[in-house]
């Protein structure tokens, strides 16, 4: 089982693909989402969002992106990271089914 992850900015879908873990900063601290997570709507702060290929402590990063605050929704192993502005810092090699497109840093 993997997570379906979508990273969406105001102007377009920035990245989508499969992943094992999503880590982001919420107002209460860091949140890590693995498969089977309960449905959640969380407010994200400005900071980094990491999408990893493996579980905790294994596998590489599929995507590291900076966001300027937004929210994260989890349901049925689908993770949506929504922010007004998303800047991709790094897309790891070997992304499975990932479609990435750089956006000029704003």
């Amino acid at each position, binding site marked *: 089982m993997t997570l379906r992850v979508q990273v*969406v900015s105001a102007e377009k879908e920035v990245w989508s693909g499969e992943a094992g873990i999503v880590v982001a900063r919420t*107002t209460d601290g860091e949140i890590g989402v693995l498969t089977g997570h309960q449905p959640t*709507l969380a407010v994200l702060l400005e900071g980094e969002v990491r999408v990893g290929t493996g579980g905790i402590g294994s596998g590489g990063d599929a995507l590291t992106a900076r966001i300027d605050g*937004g929210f994260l929704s989890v349901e049925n192993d689908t993770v949506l990271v929504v922010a*007004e*502005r998303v800047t991709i810092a790094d897309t790891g090699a070997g992304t499975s089914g990932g479609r990435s497109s750089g956006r000029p840093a704003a």
Partner: protein
Amino acid sequence: MAGQLRVYRGRIKSTQSMQKIFRAMELIATSRISRARQAVAASNPYARALTRAVSAVATFTDAEHPLITERTNVRRAAVLVVTSDRGMAGAYSAGALKEAERLIARLREQGTEAVLFVAGRKGEAFYRFRRREIQREWTGESESPTYETASAIGQTLVEAFLDGLDPDGSDADAQRDVRQEERPEAVGDRYRGPGVDEIHVVYTRFVNMVTQEPTALRLLPLEVVEGVEAPAESDLLPLYDFEPDVDQVLDALLPRYVSARIFNALLQAAASEHAARQRAMKSAGDNADDLIRQFTRLANQARQSEITQEISEIVSGADALADANS
């Protein structure tokens, strides 16, 4: 006469050069329509995600939030009119402005005063000329709107809406001060006009290449779930866990939702503008064609009559000479 022919030739030449401009503008508009439509499509995932999240919050909680609470006494309503920056787009801006006037008249019948916000230079000129007060305007980006503009508009409108919270107006200033402290970076740019109780947007909806309709839409208070695309019925929303809590999630979501709706309106208006311009330029080019054909006929006629006259002058001159010699 020689003068007449020269005049016609001049007009043909100037019409031809105008036609070249029309054709170039038509081609530019055509190529930009598809780009504008792609921009609308690209902004859809964001709008959909926000709509879904907002309706999730609205369905599973009975949270009270100023942005979704209907106000009993509506005294002022903000009207955001989206027009173009440049002309040459047929009745595009005029259509949006007419729709806005209709909306304002309807509001006035209900005893509500309209507070104007304008996007696009054409709308600004329209209201300035009529000496109507514009609270704030955003110009220069009607052809390819950015999200930054949309969120600036959204922020201003939400501020105006929150300012309208207090019916007696005594607390409004105190509240405003508090909010300014919370957001120090926004102080210089803070909206200071009259507070409003409703927010309407008038923009031109892009239906397809031949149809664009001027549309008036109430943005705030939100009618939740009437969003861009209502979620399908089979697509049931799960029971969410909110982090940190419902109110803060709503606080973060709603202003973004408003900005996303405005962004969508701006993008659709841009696509409509290009489509309207393309059509206007096409008919201008066709009209130029007709004109050129007409003037060519007239020029030929003038040339012929000139030749006829010259011949008759020569003949009569020769006749006169022959008469004198004989």
